[in-house]
């Protein structure tokens, strides 16, 4: 489960931002998880409070937005949704697609005091 080491990295980044912003407490943390980021919701939900313990983020609400995988089709030019285990253009079913979103695991927002 690499989510725990990701949660530790996430907390380290949050603490850096809090130092810059002179925040004293974190009320909520928002992240987005791409369908093909290699990160799963459930282990992340488990790992976050563990990593947040004894930090400014302890007790913060943890919100996850899931970002679907989207691809660009090199055959017909359409941008469509798809699933990681079937990389196809939804429109023309061609396999020659490039990923345009859904790969990232991002910290997207903080609510701080």
């Amino acid at each position, binding site marked *: 489960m*690499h989510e725990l080491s990701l949660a530790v*990295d996430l907390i380290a*980044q949050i603490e850096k931002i809090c130092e810059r912003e002179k925040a004293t407490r974190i009320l909520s943390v928002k992240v987005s998880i791409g369908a093909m980021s290699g990160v799963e919701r459930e282990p992340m939900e488990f790992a976050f409070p563990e990593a947040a313990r004894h930090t400014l983020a302890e007790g913060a609400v943890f919100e996850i937005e899931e970002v679907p995988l989207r691809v660009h089709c090199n055959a017909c030019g359409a941008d469509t949704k798809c699933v990681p285990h079937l990389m196809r253009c939804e429109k023309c079913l061609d396999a020659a697609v490039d990923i345009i979103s859904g790969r990232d695991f991002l910290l997207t927002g903080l609510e701080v005091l």
Partner: protein
Amino acid sequence: MCKDCGCETANAVAVHGHRHLDLETRVLAVNDEAAAKNRAWLTERGIKTLNIISSPGSGKTQLLERTLERLAQRGVKVAVIVGDQQTDNDAQRLQGKGAPVIQIETGASCHLNAQQIGNLLPEIIEEDTELLLIENIGNLVCPAAFDLGETAKVALLSVCEGEDKPVKYPLLFHDAAMVLLTKIDLIPHLDWDAEKCHQALHQVAHHGKHLSVSARSGEGMKAWIDWLIGK
């Protein structure tokens, strides 16, 4: 909703004076920066680096044993970093084949990260090194999420594992520039369906190359070595 300022807030106990910070920061930024540094360092020295990933027992170490012997015969200078949670058994197997080998024991961690590789580069890379092979921890999931600064990822799939592994673990098989189907000498003893496996690979990636090899019998090894040294 925040009772003080009326904003949409996730925290019911929010008190006045709170601030919302809109961000777009990659959580893997620390690893990515270290990976970019490794990539620049290796590229500057003209070293091709492969991050070799597979499930445990798919034959990474035996493939590397035979690969190192063949590369030595062809006069290619190679260095090896090998990762496992415990023991230096793999490094011991790879010693004495003409290449410097360093083992990383990760303890509880399920993947190698870019900082671990970066720390070892000055030690393992010699002036005439042409190729760096990194044997990642046996795991199809976690190592795929961590860039090490490699030129390309290589995925191994042994014929004993099942033809549909690529669709079950799409991230790795999508990203791999090369997929090696290993242990093909065992095919006569299995119900291996090569066509089904190629379909599964095609479902997750249209750009990767595939080769079938047996480190034990030597079948397919020449094509693998040719690809490795860019022929």
